[in-house]
């Protein structure tokens, strides 16, 4: 891991060639007010530095240095000016002649003129500095940790006056360095003021205190962000964690753990905040779902209370996956073909989190080009990879980013710009459609075409018969429609009494009728040659039809008689009723026969 960090630093060094500075002899730390917070498992220092420019030329930046021993533990450095709380630029740099130390250059917002002073707030967070001592404790014992640090502010400039406050977890402090002046109150130990210390002054500071806060470390994590242009972004985190506090000595007793609620330093549960829009949250590991978690939706975030399968005692490890979906409209912005993804590089895992090693993999949709990354801190970008998942052909580009030693302050957004042709969205649905189309086509071809080498006479005959029957049914349907036309014609004739028109209309219908009947007759003959039983049915149908036609003829005759006045009204009605009922009867029979053909 160390070599990785060195590598990172080297990379950064090669990247920023201009970052070599010299120590400006004119700068003096007029007043240092330093606070070292060791109430959690992190060491958080916040220092208010009053800079004085004793020279005449204006100063644009100053240097901040870290002890050689601590340079691998530093997780985060930030600076802001006291007056307007604005953030200042901090960048890594080197100083000739001081290659063992680590320097950061803080650029001031406005140049500091000679003789003037300014106040800068420096914030630094170190991980893995607090050492559990004793390093092994039994289940019921409390965890003690020791802090070993520099009593003085480590600076390339001489310091006029400085005080240091150590904030402890509780008032249970076993021992502490007593370099006077020093005073201890409830949860703080105040050292100083110490006057006139030279540059790079060092003196031991040791505080041994009780600290039962969770010493939870994420030893490595992988965060996968999968972007879909269909409106969803899936996030999954694979997290390996270890309790890096004092390790458990001897046996673990469930009885004591349940009855006496001991194991103060153990970790039972912790809370993770997810984005407010997170949906479908899951919490699992290599062997399945972990059923011990609770989720609460709040205004600002979704809070998930995660309980590992077993409580974590010192030295115990676990591993889990946490995943969720967020809608893409909150994170993905576009203009024409240009897209920008703006998401957190790392999200909250637990309060005061420490991540030793992290890899972020951003899976972009297929066909994405011109990827550009913007990120507020230095990361190592590995070469892009290709990922294949559902229905991919060319694969999706994956941006892989690595970073070591992260803390809460690294919860910042990165921006990823790329171009994407929107039409490519349709590629996968079309692929599916195409595949199904092909499948159906093949099935259709297979079913419709005959691949047999031999002829199946019976089957072919059956199919021919089926075709004929279809034709018969069609013809009969049309013929049934003609019956209706007859009725209409008769009714019209009765009301208009126009014999000429009637006979003309009738002739036309007769012609149609004859043609259809002839057609059915022909088919029946063909059916007969096929030897189908349907032939008889068709013959029956024809017989019924001629019965019907007969009745129609009668009806026409009666109507003509009525119009000509040869028949009385009552007589006609009787005759009509008789024919109608017969017609209906025959019609029904024909229909049923037709259905069973």
């Amino acid at each position, binding site marked *: 891991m160390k070599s990785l960090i060195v590598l990172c630093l080297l990379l950064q060094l090669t990247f920023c060639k201009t970052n070599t500075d010299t120590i400006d002899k004119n700068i003096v730390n007029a007043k240092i007010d330093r606070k070292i917070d060791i109430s959690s498992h992190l060491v958080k220092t916040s220092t208010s530095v009053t800079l004085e420019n004793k020279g005449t030329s204006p100063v644009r930046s100053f240097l901040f240095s870290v002890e050689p021993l601590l340079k691998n533990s530093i997780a985060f450095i930030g600076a802001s000016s006291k007056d307007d709380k604005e953030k200042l630029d901090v960048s890594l740099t080197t100083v000739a002649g001081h290659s063992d130390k680590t320097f950061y250059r803080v650029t001031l917002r406005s140049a500091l003129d000679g003789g003037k002073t300014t106040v800068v707030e420096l914030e630094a967070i170190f991980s893995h500095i607090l050492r559990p001592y004793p390093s092994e404790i039994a289940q019921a014992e409390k965890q003690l940790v020791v802090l070993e640090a520099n009593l003085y502010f480590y600076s390339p400039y001489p310091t006029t006056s400085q005080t240091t406050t150590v904030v402890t977890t509780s008032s249970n402090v076993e021992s502490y360095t007593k370099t006077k002046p020093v005073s201890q109150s409830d949860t703080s130990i105040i050292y100083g003021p110490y006057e006139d210390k030279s540059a790079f002054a060092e003196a031991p500071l040791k505080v041994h205190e009780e600290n039962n806060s969770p010493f939870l470390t994420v030893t490595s994590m992988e965060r996968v962000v999968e972007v879909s242009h269909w409106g969803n972004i899936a996030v999954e985190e694979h997290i390996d964690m270890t309790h890096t506090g004092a390790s458990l000595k001897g046996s*673990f*007793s*469930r*009885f004591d753990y349940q009855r006496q609620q001991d194991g103060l330093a153990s970790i039972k549960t912790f809370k993770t905040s997810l984005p407010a829009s997170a949906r479908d949250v899951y919490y699992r590991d290599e062997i399945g779902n972990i059923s011990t978690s609770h989720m609460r939706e709040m205004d600002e975030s979704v809070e998930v209370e995660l309980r590992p*399968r077993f409580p974590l005692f010192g030295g115990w*490890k676990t591993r889990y996956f946490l995943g969720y979906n967020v809608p893409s409209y909150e994170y993905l912005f576009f203009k024409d073909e240009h897209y920008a993804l703006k998401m957190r590089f790392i999200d909250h895992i637990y309060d005061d989190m420490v991540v030793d090693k992290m890899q972020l993999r951003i899976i972009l949709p297929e066909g994405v080009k011109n990827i550009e990354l913007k990120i507020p801190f230095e990361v190592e970008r590995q070469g892009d990879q290709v990922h294949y998942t559902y229905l991919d052909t060319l694969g999706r580009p994956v941006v892989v980013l690595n970073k070591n030693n992260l803390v809460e302050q690294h919860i910042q957004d990165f921006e990823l710009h790329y171009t994407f042709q929107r039409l490519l969205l349709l590629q996968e649905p079309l692929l599916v459609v195409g595949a199904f189309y092909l499948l159906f086509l093949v099935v259709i071809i297979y079913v419709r075409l005959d691949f047999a080498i031999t002829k199946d006479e019976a089957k072919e005959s*059956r199919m021919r018969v089926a075709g004929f029957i279809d034709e018969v049914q069609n013809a009969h349907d049309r013929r049934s429609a003609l019956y209706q036309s007859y009725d209409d014609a008769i009714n019209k004739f009765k009301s208009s009494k126009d014999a000429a028109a009637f006979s003309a209309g009738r002739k036309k219908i007769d012609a149609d009728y004859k043609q259809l009947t002839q057609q059915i007759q022909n088919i029946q003959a063909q059916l007969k040659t096929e030897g189908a039983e349907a032939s008889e049915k068709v013959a029956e149908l024809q017989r019924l039809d001629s019965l019907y036609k007969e009745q129609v003829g009668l009806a026409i005759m009666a109507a003509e008689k009525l119009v000509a006045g040869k028949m009385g009204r009552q007589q006609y009605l009787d005759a009509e009723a008789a024919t109608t009922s017969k017609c209906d009867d025959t019609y029904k029979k024909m229909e*049923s026969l037709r*259905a069973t053909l």
Partner: protein
Amino acid sequence: MGSRLDRYSSIQSTSYCNIGDEFSDREILLSIVPVALPQFIFILQDISFGLSMRKSQGTWGLQWLLRMSSDKQDTLLKMVILSVAATLAFSTRLFSVLRFESVIHEFDPYFNYRTTRFLAEEGFYNFHNWFDDRAWYPLGRIIGGTIYPGLMVTSAFIYHVMNYFHLTIDVRNVCVFLAPLFSSFTTIVTFYFTRELKDASAGLVAAAMLSIVPGYISRSVAGSYDNEGIAIFCMLLTYTLWIKAVKTGSIFWGSLCSLAYFYMVSSWGGYVFLINLIPLHVLMLMFTGRFSHRIYVAYSTVYCLGTILSMQISFVGFQPVQSSEHMAALGVFGLCQIHAFVDYLRSKMSSDHFNTLFRSLVLLVGSIAFGAAAVATALGKIAPWTGRFYSLLDPSYAKNNIPIIASVSEHQPTTWSSFYFDLQLLMFLFPVGLYYCFSKLTDANIFIIMYGVTSIYFAGVMVRLMLVLAPVMCVLGGIGMSAVLTTYMKNLDNPLKKEKKSSKKIESNYPLKNEIATCVVIMMTAFLLFYTYHCTWVTSEAYSSPSIVLSARGGDGSRIIFDDFREAYYWLRHNTPEDAKVMSWWDYGYQITAMANRTILVDNNTWNNTHISRVGQAMASPEEKAYEIMRELDVGYVLVIFGGLTGYSSDDINKFLWMVRIGGSTDRGSHIKEWDYYTPQGEFRVDKDGSPVLLNCLMYKMCYYRFGSVYTEGGKPTGYDRVRNTEIGNKDFELDVLEEAYTTEHWLVRIYKVKDLDNRGA
């Protein structure tokens, strides 16, 4: 290779495992489907029946259907019913996935899952040559040569095909859903099988019944990733192709049948049933004088090809020509040749000559065959009859002679209630189906009769073989049901045909024809409805708990999940040295290797009785004695299952007598006597009256360490065991050679670390 399946105990202890009192909406939906099915099938059958009788007048508003030709209607109906049944077969098996998660169940499936993952990741050759040093420490196990690889190869194949098309599904999900998928296939195969036996409508009923029969579901729910899941499919496929081969007498179908047989052999040890049933069928055909060229061709092809193919499975090896279990097939093969030869001679000779020749030949061949068999047995060429086979013929054999076989609950004889539980209506339809088969005997029908009769016998011997019985029950039940319905549907008056009927003369010798028919049809519908209700209920209540995750109802009705097994395994996985050896009873071996990824001494592949016995001895001995055994076996951690706090009844104390028996069954464990663990009255008790040997043995101490101070139930003293319902006898003791390493939240799993030897000076 059985696992100890205490599925019945989980039903009885209702205080503990009463899952599914309330269904969620999804589950209700899921349960409606199978209920709706029979009605659906019924209606469809009604329609198709009506159509085939040419009576239908289109009053159901299904004009579009009626306009189709009857061929098309037929195909459409069949496809609809079959696909509904297949979908149902899949979905009814998903209860546990919906209720819990997509997780592997039980014990054996974990091994199968682990090997499948290995196969998918490492490829077939590495799999074939895999020597597993994670199990049976210090012996190890040659996995490639001691398993039936069909299941793993199938899932790995599906996995690779899916991933080739970039459908990135992981191995676990393939494994979880494989059994339901193959159940769907089985449903379809059942249709074809029954259609070959009787007709398509019987096939549809059989398929629908099979899709939800609990006897089959018990081994094929989602997550139950076991050999049986695909083996039933293979078995029915082989039978179907066999029937086809017998009917056609074609080498093509015979070869296909032997390929299916090969798949079956590669996937399940139960193939022995198959290779005995087919010869039995042939033999029966010979006795009934139905032997013909068709059968000769079919059997010769199937036997020769099938045997050669089955020998390609390295676990089977030369057994098909050596072991006695396969001798029947060989014998019938020989008999076939002789029969064919005799037939040939008979056609060429006069009957007098023939008879003389026949008698002398029978004598000669008989004595030679007997002599050869005797010599081969004496030389050990023919494997001795294995215990499992004996126990098939004589149910009490295993119990008396091989404790490790008898200790597995699924090797116990089946009770009547579990027959009804697993088959319900089919129990009564089975004889009906048999009747219809007998009433119209064909070559194929004889097969199903043989299959039904033999499998009902085997299912009576062993609970586990219920699985073999379930399909034939469905087939015969389907035949029976369909025949009854077809008979009576014909007698129903058709209201739309009344005119014609009235013109005819009413048959006076059958009074109330319509009414009786209606009654029968309604009754059958009701039976089918109850059948589906029962099947769904059984599936949901009894067969859908993953057993790795337990659930119970709390006082306020909320669901409490006991995930202790995984808690313990996961703890082992991450917080013990990579090479730690874990000792536990063999039941948990597969799960520990798969989930905890640690080396274990014994597992569910109970191939080495002495090794298991050694572990049994350690568990049954007092601490000092056990320490010697544990040092000898390099044990780092010991894992026990303890249900005393929660009331989980299949824990190690309840299995303890088997450990004693198995421990005492070898020479080195001869000092362990079962009787020492009983009270003078012959009872097994853990309270004050219990035998002192029991109260001081390692297993007792590990289970009850510090339990003596725990209050488990109101109004009861401390150390009250909720499984045995007594206060434990030995409460206050310390462990000398072990220390508690981890105990899960509900005390279900307790893990102890074996201490190192003391420093000499101390």
